[in-house]
């Protein structure tokens, strides 16, 4: 699907030429091992690079230039995947082909170079006023999680369910970590990123691939990585508790449950686990949706998600606090049903059809092509819709029942309103 060119040791360009889209999409990913100590500084770094560089010193001047480039979208962010933390720069620009005057693409590549390689340094350091301002922004971002109660409940669950584990490490770091950042530590992290991180560069659009690789080599003068990054495996950690309740001022209670999944992404049984998740709570035809919502009217949403990178499964629902026990019991019953082999042909076939459809739909966007390819290219099977469909098709009811037996409920987190006095 993508053509790969190594432009330096540990620096790979993945290109895909297609006339499917009216734009050209870039995604540049700097990867290193995930650790609590680096997350905060790398997140603040993305904010600083996003808002100021040597050529466009203010966010407004950079925005104005992006407006001139037909509203080219450019943003930096941090994410995580398994045991990796990723600094990413995403760009989407219109294809010159649809404009009266061309040459937007070259200007965009120049700008990518500026953003990454021409920082706004004073006395060889990031300006401390900008660093302080962006630190405050990241602290706000961390604190604002509390204001969105379902996100807050999910982070609270992760902390007690998988302590000291990549699944619970926040890419934004902690408030204390952010506060400790100085212009010097930020510069150290910036230089280390350019020098040591593995870099994957994805490009999708109606492009000349050879020319694009040559242009990228020029725009991103990255040298050989001395120690190309190797994936480090990590073990599950034990939950701190099997139940915790927290009370804040709110109307709807949030029920979040953490399960140990028997397999991760790199296991051949991964496909079976995806089907289990679809039958359990992944879709509107699933047992959780049909029973907790449609049959019992206990919730507006009740579903499961399988996070294959971490070998965990979550069930989340918003309910009346007084129905807690009833809903927990119903959810338990749905898992038990699958464990006992209560799986209809229809449920199995619907789930397979939905998984295939979702994959094909994801490939209809450039961003989807990049993300799906980036995830599945690690699998030993060739990356095609047909090859993946075969894997799903091969899964039987017995396979699903077998894997369901190994799904283990470990931690319940219940966020609820204050009780009436």
């Amino acid at each position, binding site marked *: 699907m993508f053509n790969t060119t190594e432009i330096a040791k540990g620096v790979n360009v993945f290109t895909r030429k297609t006339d499917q889209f*009216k734009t050209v999409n870039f995604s540049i990913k700097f990867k290193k091992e995930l650790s609590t100590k680096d997350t905060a500084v790398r997140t603040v770094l993305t904010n600083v690079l996003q808002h100021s560089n040597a050529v466009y010193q203010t966010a407004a001047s950079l925005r104005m230039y992006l407006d001139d480039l037909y*509203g080219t979208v450019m943003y930096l962010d941090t994410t995580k995947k398994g045991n990796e933390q990723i600094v990413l720069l995403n760009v989407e620009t219109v294809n010159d082909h649809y404009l009266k005057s061309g040459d937007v693409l070259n200007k965009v590549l120049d700008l990518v170079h500026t953003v990454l390689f021409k920082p706004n340094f004073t006395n060889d350091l990031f300006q401390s006023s900008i660093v302080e301002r962006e630190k405050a922004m990241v602290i706000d971002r961390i604190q604002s999680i509390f204001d969105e109660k379902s996100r807050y409940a999910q982070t609270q669950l992760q902390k007690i369910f998988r302590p000291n584990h990549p699944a619970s490490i926040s890419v934004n770091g902690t408030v204390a970590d952010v506060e400790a950042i100085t212009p010097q530590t930020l510069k150290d992290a910036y230089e280390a990123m350019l020098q040591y991180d593995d870099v994957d560069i994805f490009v999708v659009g109606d492009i000349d691939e050879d020319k694009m690789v040559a242009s990228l080599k020029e725009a991103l003068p990255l040298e050989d990585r001395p120690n190309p990054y190797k994936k480090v495996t990590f073990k599950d950690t034990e939950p701190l508790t099997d139940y915790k309740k927290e009370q804040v001022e709110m*109307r709807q209670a949030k029920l979040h449950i953490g399960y140990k999944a028997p397999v991760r992404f790199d296991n051949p049984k991964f496909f079976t686990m995806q089907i289990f998740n679809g039958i359990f709570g992944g879709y509107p*035809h699933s047992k959780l949706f049909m029973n907790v919502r449609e049959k019992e*009217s206990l919730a507006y949403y009740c579903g499961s998600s399988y996070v294959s990178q971490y070998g965990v499964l979550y069930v989340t629902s918003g309910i009346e606090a007084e129905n807690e026990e009833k809903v927990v019991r119903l959810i338990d019953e749905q898992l038990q049903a699958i464990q006992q082999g209560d799986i209809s042909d229809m449920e199995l076939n619907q789930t397979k059809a939905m998984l295939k459809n979702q994959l094909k739909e994801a490939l209809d966007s450039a961003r989807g092509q990049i993300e799906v390819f980036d995830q599945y290219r690690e699998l030993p099977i060739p990356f095609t819709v047909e090859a993946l469909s075969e894997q799903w098709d091969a899964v039987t009811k017995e396979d699903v029942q077998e894997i369901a037996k190994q799904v283990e409920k470990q931690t319940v987190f219940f966020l609820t309103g204050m009780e009436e006095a």
Partner: protein
Amino acid sequence: MEKVQFEQLGEELYYEKLDNGLDVYILPKKGFSKTFVTFTTKYGSVDRTFVPLGETEPVTVPDGIAHFLEHKMFEKEDGDVFQKFSQYGASANAFTSFTRTAYLFSATNHIYESTTTLLDFVQQPYFTEQTVNKEKGIIGQEITMYDDQPDWRAYFGSIENLYKNHPVKIDIAGTIETIDEITAEHLYTCYNTFYHPSNMLLFVIGSVEPEKMMAHIRENQAQKTFAEATPIQRIEVDEPLEVNCVANELRMDIQKPKAYVSFKARETHLQGHEMLKQELAIQLALDLMYGRSSAFYEEMYEKGWIDESYSYDFSLEKGFGFAMVGSDTNHPVELENAIKTVMNESEAALPFDAEKLERVKRRKIGFFLRAMNSIEFIANQFTRYKFNDMNLFDAVPVIEELTMEDVEQAMKSIQGITQQSTFTVKPLKEAK
């Protein structure tokens, strides 16, 4: 079947008005494997007082009924419609806005079967007292979920401030109390009045053969009989220009206050080309006054009065319209005043020139070109535009033609000082 070409965009749109009055549009998209179909009625939360089909006297129905009806369309005598879509690997969904109710699916396979399912389930109502009552628990949880979302509360708090009588001020889902009043009979009354094919639009986009799909839809519709199409009588309310309430606040369990300033539109009865021009002109002006490349934004960001939650927006529909600017902030009063100052000073002279206007026009054109990659965007927006007699594909040429005079004229709609209101969400305890 008509065919319209949009050469600059490289798009071809097929159209037919069926005998029963249904407008069908088909837009094939090269290179896509998915097909996205929306079936939309021009009926939303604001349509609460109307003359029911076949009657002469207007009625007012309980708040939240359009949304309730949307939920109940999915349940049939033989079960849940989601099950059928899932069998074809199709993802189905629906949403209700102030002015529209849309039913939709996307799929990469079995698109004719799913299109039939979509048309049939929306055109075969099945409501009983029992199924209606069962849904109250589910929607009740949807309502309480939104009640806990401070941004949603701030949005609706702002609209309640702006409007005295217009039903746009009523939450789309209603309240626990109002949905409790809803009966199966109410649902049939609303359904029969607003779900006539002549009040609906079907949009098909993606991997589709236009002739074959049109024939399929035509055949499906020809098998059904509908009442004679009659114009729908919606009862309009009188709404003064000035706001209902100039400032209001709400306390919630949050860390950082939220401050919103909203501006009520004076001009809300344009349709067609004039409305498109008006809407785009105001959006461009707001980009220049409040956008991320504006002097205002830069100053607020430098001062730390706004953060990443900052947003601004302009909505216009027939009968109501408003702009909103706001952010999470530890300086709500200062921010609200600064937002108002930019608007008030723009009355004497807009804070930008023709050259800057050209720049945001370019950005907006880029936005529309990017959006042409999104079949969901095209389907949803095309329908919204069409319901207001506008054409989505005219947006780029209209932007190209907009002048400073057009923008000055359009901005008069939201500049009056009596049209402004603030809404603040504050933490339970004041920060020290």
